[in-house]
């Protein structure tokens, strides 16, 4: 359980986080979504007590991070990949963290096994790829078997197999009743991983919602349609007020009209339709929301 209340942070004259309030609950994966530079990492650092807020407060499990008796046993964080001394081995890095929080030594090898780094446990971190660095960061987060997990852009640098692994891991951890808070600037990734969403833009809260609601609210819906009579249908749709884009695969993407409207129009002029699919573009919905935030800020 993470509770963020009126959190603000300034770097010089730049407001990085602006009066942010939201909750992250246990048992689900909560996505933290926003464009690059929107204040996600700063917020996560403030949750973990690394950056000090200009105002507002943040508590984890009802306490300030600073007051947690065994922080790594309560909260696990992956904030930056490869933020580890390059001359230290993966095992030694985890061992220093384990020592500081009285975590038994065998747990180090356990988490290395869990993230698939057993074979390179004794290798120096400087030789690791970005993806291996991410896995080591996740191992460090899991070290204390904590109930709250914060992952900042965990799939950066991972290959498709690694991305799927992170997705499955997040869901599994949430399934165990843990609080899982994952940031990303990629809406599509969040749609696959998260149940809940906290969306921010320019440091302000834009939406605190479920993924399903977020998609439903999207006004940028389009319809994918396939027909043998490409030109005739395209002209008819344009005349009816739709915007039509011919896709390279031979289908048409129509915006400004609903799927029934497109189907009815095709039927009325006697054209065959082979496919008719409503498409909700998450990226568009996301861009639309964050654009509003930018405009709002520009006007104020």
């Amino acid at each position, binding site marked *: 359980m993470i509770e963020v209340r009126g959190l603000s942070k300034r770097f010089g004259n730049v407001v990085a986080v602006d009066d942010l309030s939201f909750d992250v609950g246990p048992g689900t994966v909560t996505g933290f979504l926003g464009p690059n530079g929107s204040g996600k990492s700063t917020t996560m650092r403030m949750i973990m007590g690394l950056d000090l807020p200009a105002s507002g407060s943040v508590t984890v499990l009802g306490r300030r991070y600073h007051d947690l008796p065994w922080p790594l046993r309560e909260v696990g964080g992956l904030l930056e990949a490869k933020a*580890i001394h390059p001359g230290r081995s993966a095992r030694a890095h985890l061992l220093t963290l384990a020592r500081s929080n009285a975590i038994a030594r065998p747990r180090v090898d356990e988490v290395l096994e869990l993230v698939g780094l057993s074979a390179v446990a004794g290798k120096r971190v400087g030789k690791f790829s970005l993806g291996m660095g991410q896995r080591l960061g996740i191992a460090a987060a899991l070290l204390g078997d904590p109930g709250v997990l914060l992952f900042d852009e965990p799939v950066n640098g991972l290959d498709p197999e690694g991305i799927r692994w992170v997705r499955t891991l997040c869901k599994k951890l949430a399934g165990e009743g843990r609080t899982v808070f994952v940031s990303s600037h990629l809406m599509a990734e969040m749609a696959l991983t998260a149940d809940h969403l906290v969306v921010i833009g320019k440091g302000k809260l834009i939406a605190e919602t479920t993924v399903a609601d977020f998609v439903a609210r999207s006004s940028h819906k389009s319809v994918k349609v396939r027909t043998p009579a490409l030109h005739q249908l395209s002209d008819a749709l344009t005349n009816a007020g739709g915007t039509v884009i011919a896709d390279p695969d031979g289908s048409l993407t129509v915006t400004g009209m609903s799927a029934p409207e497109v189907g009815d129009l095709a039927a009325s002029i006697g054209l065959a339709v082979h496919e008719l699919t409503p498409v909700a573009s998450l990226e568009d919905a996301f861009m639309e929301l964050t654009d509003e935030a930018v405009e709002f800020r520009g006007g104020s």
Partner: protein
Amino acid sequence: MTVVAGMPASFEAAQIPGRAGLRRAMAAEWTKLWSVRSTMWTLVATVVAVVGLCALGTGTISASEIIDDPTRRSLIGIFLGQLIFGVLGVLVMSAEYGTGTIRATLSAVPRRPVVLTAKVVVFGAVAVVVSEILAFSAFAVGQAILSAKHAVGSKAAAAQRAQQLGVKIPHNIQAVLSTGSASLGQPGVLRAVVGAGLYLAVLGLLALGLATIIRHTAGAISAFVGVVLVLPLIVQALPTSLSNAVARYLPANIGLVMFSTNGVPASREVAYAFSPWAGFALLALYTVVILGIGCLVLVRRDA
């Protein structure tokens, strides 16, 4: 915490008494220090370089040269050692910022003064042990060389020099002056050798404090070199009266007195210096102040 119906049971972390305190932080720092190869290499290199330089300083004397303080002569390599200890002290802190490890460190132990204290205790203990090994080795090697070369001390030459500088040679020291090599049983000698090691260790901690304030390796090393090497040059350029008054406050001059036996001034500046232990107390005070400022900065700034 409420659990929504249909959700899995809430996760309970194991409850363990106590907290991530100083003892745990020290264990982590110990592991951290020795899990990087450079630590051991640097320490071995320091011992070899300093003892080597001391051997060179005593091995190159000519038969006619008069040794007015054989102890100091054998420990002169300490001035090289202080630079390496300075770099090590800086890296204990600055490497954390340079690599980003500081965020992992402070996530594990969020009470920052505890982290700094753990570093000071662990690095300080290692520094004292290594620097004392170094000082005693340098002394032993240097004295063996001096005595093998039948080096001559001169009571008369030392007395003349003391007179020039307007200082008195304590009575119990005069006996020492007639010999060209020293032994630990002679007055002031053991104190000088122990003092040489302590001087190095405290300078290492001073460097750690500077790095806590400055955070960047290059910047902190520059500041350290400025304090121990550049400041004396500036002070030397001042008018004599002012220079004499200021010089005794400089770490390098405090160090020179600490590893000299009593009574024989090594240079004009040292003639006006504090006594060895008073100088050491002052150096320790500098270090505490720098570490204190470092602690304040560490607590107040974002990691």
